[in-house]
């Protein structure tokens, strides 16, 4: 028995090593740089620098705007799609779902390059619509990450709940609004967090589609190429803090949304 226990535990060793080497250690380095100055002395100057720097804050706003619009567009496109794929006659049609997921199998820089040509045909001159391009590019990139979790939640919904709602006199519309929609919220929330956070930093899309305004990712890069490891690390750390806060918030809501708690009663 003890041998069995030992082997179960040892299965976790590779991941523990990975965690230490590639998560914990880099994080420590990040903390070190963020809270030291060029001479290696402890300082809060970088933190203060971030929150008093109108560019850094402006970039944060711009990143938020790009990410929020991208997330909203993704949600508007993904929910009906996922609903359609997961319900009724198409429920078992894996092929259709595949069509929506397939783009994920192609390297994203290839997809963005193709998108660049398509957008050039449509817009004429890409450079005139930098914000739009960023949103289109990110939406194109992240849409599958929104569709999948929503699809999963809706397809696992207990159909008898909807039947019960209808037996109690709800028409299609209110059955959807009062049963399906609230019950699918966990999927929506995990979709949102899978799109929103990467969209704040994915500057490659902006670079490739010629949006010359920095977002958080490119701002960090510019600090590093100016040899300012300390300021750059602090920005990365602030970003990390935002992500943690965001995850905590959505994590709480996710619990609220699961069947059996308040969600079903809303």
């Amino acid at each position: 028995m003890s041998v069995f226990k030992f082997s179960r535990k040892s299965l976790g060793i590779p991941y523990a090593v990975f965690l230490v080497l590639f998560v914990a250690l880099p994080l420590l380095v990040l903390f070190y740089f963020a809270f030291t100055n060029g001479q290696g002395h402890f300082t809060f100057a970088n933190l203060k620098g971030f929150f008093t720097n109108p560019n850094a804050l402006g970039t944060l706003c711009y990143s938020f705007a790009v990410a929020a619009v991208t997330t909203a567009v993704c949600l508007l496109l993904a929910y009906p799609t996922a609903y359609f794929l997961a319900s009724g006659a198409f429920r078992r049609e894996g092929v259709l779902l595949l069509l929506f997921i397939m783009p994920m199998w192609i390297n994203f820089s290839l997809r963005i390059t193709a998108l660049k040509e398509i957008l050039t045909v449509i817009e004429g001159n890409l450079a005139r619509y930098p914000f739009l391009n960023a949103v289109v590019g990110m939406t194109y990139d992240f849409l599958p990450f929104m569709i999948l979790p929503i699809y999963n939640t809706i397809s696992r919904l207990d159909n008898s709940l909807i039947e019960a709602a209808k037996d109690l006199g709800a028409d299609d519309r209110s059955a959807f609004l009062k049963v399906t929609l609230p019950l699918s919220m966990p999927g929506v929330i995990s979709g949102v967090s899978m799109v929103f956070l990467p969209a704040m930093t994915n500057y490659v899309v902006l670079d490739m589609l010629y949006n010359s305004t920095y977002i958080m990712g490119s701002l960090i890069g510019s600090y590093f190429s100016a040899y300012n490891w300390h300021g750059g690390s602090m920005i990365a750390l602030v970003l990390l803090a935002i992500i943690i806060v965001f995850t905590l918030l959505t994590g709480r809501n996710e619990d609220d949304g699961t069947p059996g708690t308040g969600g079903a009663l809303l």
Partner: protein
Amino acid sequence: MRNRKTALPAKKRILRAMPAALASLSLLAGTLRITGIRIAADSGESALSAVSEAAEAPADSAAGNHLPPAGTDKVTLRVCNWEEYIDLGDWSEEDTIDLPSGDIFGENSMVDDFETWYRETYGVDVEVEYSTFGTNEDLYNMLTLGDEYDIVCPSEYMFMKLMAEDMLVPLSDTFFDEKDSLNYYVKGVSPYIREVFDSHQIGGEKWSRYAAGYMWGVTGIVYNPEYLTEEEASTWKVLADPDYSRQVTIKDNVRDSYFAALGALKSDLLTDPSFISAPDYRQRLEEEMNDVSPDTIALVQDYLQDIKDNVYSFETDSGKADMITGKVLANYQWSGDAVYTMDQADEDDFTLCFAVPEESTNIYFDAWVMLKKGIGSDAAKQHAAEAFINFCSRPDNVIRNMYYIGYTSVISGGDDGRIFEYVDWNFGAEEDEENTISYPLGYFFSDDPGDEAYILTVPKEQRQRQLFAQYPSEKSIRRSSIMVYFDADKNDAINQMWINVRCFNIKDVPVWAWVLTAALLAVPAALWLRKKERRSFTG
């Protein structure tokens, strides 16, 4: 002019013909700042082939040569160079450069050939670990974060920084001994380059004491002559010209952008005949083009803001493709990449030209320097490193590198006429060709700018085409300026300026956006409160 289409090495041609899609992969890699891909030099293979130029066989000349320290039998040399900046060999038959004085052909990579040559010449095994970097800043970060190299090839401002920070080992006295028949660098370096490297100093020391040139070039504008005249393209002001709104690109780095903005802002002064004819013109030009006073930085920031609103993109690599596919009409380019762009356009049967702005052009030099951390006091290593510089400076190897990468070597060949022969082979007019011009290159190949021996007869169009990009006219070189490295404070100031240009300022967030955000945040908050209230009733 010979048909440059057949003059491209086959391998390079395949690379160039690769679909944009693949090219974007390298773009991505660049953007993610993945650098330092290590290509372990295959020392086994190199033994199979002899060095291409049998005439250079060392046995007969070894007498007066400086040898590696006795007792050395194996050296490892860690070289770090720009990406795609050396001949990788593997040419096809048709790439043979058939100069009158003999064929030149790249069979193996330059690195392999060096290993073979060093073993045969000095009887010492050398293993080259060859890696690459993407930008000067990347290289500096790699060096300061612990990567160790023996010899690297940064641009002038970066080796100035490395010199100032005392990170370099000076070149040995034997490297400058012209009596040594294998000292190809000192025997072959262009008088013009020698003068530049001798006359520029940092901390009281000449560049030439630490740095041996490799490639050089100028910055300018590649333009499509169907849409822009030469005159329109010959000014930095074209970048902010509303007539070409969203149809020009600029470089995505602070130094190049700063230089262009300075040129445009000071255009009136810089093109004033009395300024140009002043006796201290060169010195004053360099001062103006390195002006980083706070007032100037503020002006540059405003001007770059205008440029940002006018250009198609800030680019590091994509500008070449955008120029070739016709997305943009003009693009800020380094001369070596300009040659590449024009070659590529020629293959697609349309013409692009290169212009050097009237105000000034940024002349740059990439040079080999040896690192204290790598070489230290290891004399064997230093000998191998200096031999590597010399091997790359041997005229036939210079031609191979230039042919392969499209940039211009600092080597003019000295007594060896093959490099000038190669330029003539590449660009010279056919005998029966009409509409030719004479193109003097004495400034580079000789001490005398008007040297009759170095006047090319070329098709007229070459005055603004590949030849002009590879060897700019003496007139445009006269208005060139280097851009020095700035001390930490000034450097911080221009970097901050750059961030100001590229970032969205929080003060620019419109009121409606704040209101909208507040409204959007209020909705979920209200829902949550309502839910909480209800639950307290039911619970």
